[in-house]
């Protein structure tokens, strides 16, 4: 296949296909993942090609899906489960937090839990309640889990490969409003480590750190700021657990200004952690406090209000101004 332009959802589909093809222990499980190909069609055609034994339509029971995936992993399988929407992961939260995350440690490292939990997350698609949330901090807070989110098709392809190959449980947050965005995917490339942040755009005046759906917003903000004569660096964090603080530090030592952007509520969120750590690490480099742009401490609003809730170009640029004004 080599290099090809494809949508993010298609890249995940190709990645799952590659995994099913190369490792007979890989299984796909979830609600509607078979014939329908998932509500976002991410698993489209996989059941047709790999059969109902490998691509499994499960009962409507999230705790059951994750709980049985744990059992399958204990038996040597590598289940990749789909939670249909972010807001529906909570029936499985117990299994994820009390079982999946801790079992390796409890077993003195003797067992491995190579389970990937795919969660389409985030807003911006005009959906109803429970279909637009960003609960990544709830998972990143739990030791034993890895939490990642790609922002483009190439990362989606490669990070899914790496997530499946990881012997640790990985919560794989898919930015659902970027499912249809196309970019180049080189399936022959050699990817960097799963947790490594990448510089999505180089700059020298300020660093915008983001992941998943917000990377695109930050790139647009950087382009807009360029017109005002500002050079903004955009860091795509890619991983929320672990967080690649070294890359953030390197960038901040250069730009001396940091704004973290995510859709999830700011309070006790990923941005808070980054602000705290970077303040610690870069205290004498920083020319302004680390600022955060994100969701409010309020339930995700109805679709008509989501543009107010979600960080857009203006809110990001506003934070850029505030930071540079110090």
């Amino acid at each position, binding site marked *: 296949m080599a290099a090809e332009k494809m949508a993010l959802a298609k890249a995940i589909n190709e990645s799952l296909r590659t995994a099913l093809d190369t490792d007979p222990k890989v299984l796909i499980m979830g609600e509607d993942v078979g014939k329908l190909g998932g509500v976002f069609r991410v698993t489209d055609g996989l059941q047709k090609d790999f059969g109902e034994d490998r691509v499994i339509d499960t009962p409507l029971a999230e705790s059951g899906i994750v*709980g049985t995936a744990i059992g399958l992993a*204990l*038996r040597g399988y590598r289940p990749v489960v789909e939670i249909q929407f972010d807001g529906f992961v909570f029936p499985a939260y117990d299994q994820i937090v009390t079982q999946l995350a801790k079992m390796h440690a409890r077993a003195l490292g003797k067992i491995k839990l190579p389970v990937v939990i795919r969660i389409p997350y985030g807003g911006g698609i005009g959906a109803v309640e429970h279909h637009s949330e960003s609960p990544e901090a709830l998972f990143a807070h739990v030791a034993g889990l890895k939490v990642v989110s790609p922002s483009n098709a190439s990362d989606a392809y490669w990070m899914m490969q790496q997530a499946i190959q990881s012997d640790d449980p990985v919560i794989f947050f898919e930015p659902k409003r970027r499912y249809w965005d196309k970019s180049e995917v080189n399936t022959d490339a050699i990817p960097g480590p799963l947790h490594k942040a990448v510089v999505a755009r180089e700059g020298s005046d300020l660093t915008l750190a983001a992941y998943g759906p917000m990377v695109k917003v930050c790139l647009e903000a950087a382009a807009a700021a360029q017109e005002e004569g500002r050079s903004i660096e955009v860091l795509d964090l890619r991983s929320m657990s672990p967080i690649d603080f070294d890359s953030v530090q390197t960038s901040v030592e250069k730009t001396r200004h940091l704004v973290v952007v995510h859709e999830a509520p700011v309070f006790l969120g990923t941005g808070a952690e980054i602000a705290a750590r970077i303040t610690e690490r870069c205290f004498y480099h920083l020319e302004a406090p680390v600022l955060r742009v994100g969701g409010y401490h309020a339930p995700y609003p109805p679709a008509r209000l989501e543009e107010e809730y979600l960080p857009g170009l203006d809110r990001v640029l506003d934070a850029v101004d505030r930071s540079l004004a110090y």
Partner: protein
Amino acid sequence: MTVESTAARKPRRSAGTTAAKGGASTAGSKTAASRTAAGKGTGAAGKKAPGTPGADPELVQLLTPEGERVADATYDPYVADITPEELRGLYRDMVLSRRFDAEATSLQRQGELGLWASMLGQEAAQIGSGRATRDDDYVFPTYREHGVAWCRGVDPTNLLGMFRGVNNGGWDPNGNNFHLYTIVIGSQTLHATGYAMGIAKDGADSAVIAYFGDGASSQGDVAESFTFSAVYNAPVVFFCQNNQWAISEPTEKQTRVPLYQRAQGYGFPGVRVDGNDVLACLAVTKWALERARRGEGPTLVEAYTYRMGAHTTSDDPTKYRADEERESWEAKDPILRLRAYLEASNHADEGFFAELEAESETLGKRVREVVRAMPDPDHLAIFENVYADGHALVDEERAQFAAYQASFVDEGEGK
């Protein structure tokens, strides 16, 4: 009439019936449920179906509380070739696991363990079912399966680390195909089901057994594991030890139908066995495991038994249950019952019992010594095995923590 008295009766399952094999749940559903006939039943579960006389026809029993062997056409074949030596083995298992349990209880009282969940009274359910498993089967326990762990060859002192607070698990689950204890009620039934699905996929003929309590039967995870195992025809035996209580809540607070009948709604058989009868537990579990191996899917076994002690050492059962209840169950003690049978049938002599007593003393001594010698874990163990592949944040925090610890030690040494 009470179930306490029905347990003494002969089972009514007539010779030649294939009800259990073909689907005991269907057979059972025609007859009355009578757990709640135990005197406190007020709801539907306490009512008997029309035409069902007083006895509890569903309760599979091979040994009466007096130790008399009774016939059961369906399940006798599963223990037909049992040797006197194997019978003595079952007795030994029950005595030693009870001794271990008692030792752990007193170690808790002496402050050596933070908590202990005693299995006193449930030895027959655990040893009978545990001995029915094959080495290649996989066991998913809850937190009270000390007797099953014993059968699987897990060193009993391994079970104590978690209760002493030196680890959160304490053994390699793959060492004896005995998974870690699970504290979150019912979670492990799904792990068991998934594992069983894996066995089916592998085309292997081993099976899985999942333990849980009557209280756990109310959890969504247990319902979901029934659903999944039925839909995927997973080779799993659900072994519910109905010990009558979930801490302070009686079974009536969990269900209005006898638990074994739940299976019917999911499309697999459910059987109620006298959980204080080690032979019956062995036979019924073997039957269920063999069904699973043959690809006939899951079975629910409800072992009808009694938790004679407190829920855990933190519990005070006098607050919620009457002494008479415990006394009535003491009359059905699983160990006395097998001893009576062994003696009556001349399968064991005084020498055997004396030797076992000595062995039991040795075990008790070893458990005491091992527990007292258990070291506290190294502080850096906090960061061990958090991830299989490593994690930058853990590495960083481990280094910070280690440096902090080191500075502390230096300061102390300087003084």
